[in-house]
């Protein structure tokens, strides 16, 4: 995450209303293309309407498309989603292809994603399928039949030799070596 993302609203990946579990419902419900009939900034939008719009509408019959000519105002793509959100895209000086690309974008998303950063690219409501740890997990079955307090289990669990034992062993070795030296003399 860079500095420019600090003030973006963090969000998780979500699907509205279990979309896609049953069948996929396109979350874009309608698009309003606002443009001017004479202004240069709307040129790409006008070209799009002349050549590509029919194909777009044929391929996406679930989206209601409205055209709204307005005199001398910049072209706008207004997208309305099923969750009630509205997204405005300023399409001034867009080329015909750019308009189509933006329309594909709004068609494929479920809400207005501007000003949002994803915290992670994955999300799950159930992070663990094993369940929580309990103190009885991996418990030694031997303990089931033990009576407490138990002398053996109460002792310190020491695996290695203690320092005292090591010292005693060294002392014994030293004594043997001393004896051998005396014999050699």
């Amino acid at each position: 995450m860079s500095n420019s993302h600090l003030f973006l609203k963090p969000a998780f990946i979500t699907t509205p209303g279990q979309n896609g579990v049953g069948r996929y419902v396109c979350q874009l419900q309608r698009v309003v293309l606002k443009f001017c009939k004479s202004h240069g900034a709307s040129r790409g939008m006008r070209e799009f309407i002349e050549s590509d719009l029919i194909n777009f509408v044929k391929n996406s019959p679930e989206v209601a498309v409205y055209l709204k000519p307005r005199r001398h105002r910049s072209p706008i793509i207004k997208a309305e989603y099923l969750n009630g959100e509205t997204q405005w895209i300023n399409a001034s000086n867009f080329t015909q292809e750019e308009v189509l690309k933006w329309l594909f974008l709004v068609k494929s998303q479920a809400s207005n994603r501007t000003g949002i950063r994803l915290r992670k690219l994955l999300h799950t409501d159930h992070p663990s399928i094993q369940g929580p740890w309990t103190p009885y997990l991996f418990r030694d079955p031997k303990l089931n039949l033990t009576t407490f307090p138990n002398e053996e289990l109460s002792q310190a669990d020491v695996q290695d030799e203690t320092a005292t034992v090591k010292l005693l062993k060294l002392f014994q070795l030293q004594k043997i070596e001393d004896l051998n030296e005396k014999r050699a003399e």
Partner: protein
Amino acid sequence: MSFWRQSLKLANRLISHNSKSIFHATNSRNFHRWVSPTLRELSRRRKIVGPDPEKPRSTYLEWNYDVEIHCFGKRVGENFDEKVLREAFIQREWANLQEFKGKAEDESFIPPQHNYELVQEGFKLIKDHIQDIYSKTYTIDIVNAVCDYLTTDEMLAHVAKYLGVKDLIKSVEFPPSTKTLADTFKAIVGALSYSADPERVKLFVNDFVVCQMNGKDVYDIWTPDNPYDYLLKLLQEKGITNVEPRLCNQSATNTILANYQVGLYNSEDKSCLGLGWGENIQIAKNSAALDAIQRIYN
């Protein structure tokens, strides 16, 4: 946004009016001293009045009900009979109001059909299908609980919301209430039963209602009041009569963090029926019984 645009418009008008009538001057480089206090006053008044109420989408200039109805059918991927689909969106109160208005003007006015019957039919179809699906695995208690959960007004309104029903509804109130949304969804299912074969209707209910159980546990929705007794009853039907609850583990007894683990065993073949935890033995036994009930069905 609209508020700022309006206030700016007002400010512009004030500026232009001012410059024309008093100064006859060209554009000035500074903001007038009154602009800021005026905007502040406007925003103060707006705060007192509150935001504008939400306007129905149908009052907008760019609105075509025929297109919207067509798009709705395509959106859910069904071929509706358009006349019945239109009927499904008309609430009874709205139809009555139209009839009242129409009759006042013209005696021969034909009142619009409302969705009351479609709602009843659709609701029955939804309930029947959910019960059919769940009764294959679960007992009648669980089936009823799940069915009630899936057919609450809140759940059906939630489903309807993501089908884009809100703008199409013709009702007296706006925004439409939860009940209206739920009723409209039921009516849509009813309308589908007139337009497509019963298999298609079942698929529709499956895809939009039953799939709401995705990621949810049946046992979060349904819990018996007394799990141990309920388990004994269930096991008796299966022919297991000797259930032996055993205290398997305990820790931190006589403290506030006491914890017990109880296991339920079939004392005939020594098999474990269920395991449960709790802060005392009674709770642990009940949760073990819940676990055992879950193991029966899974």
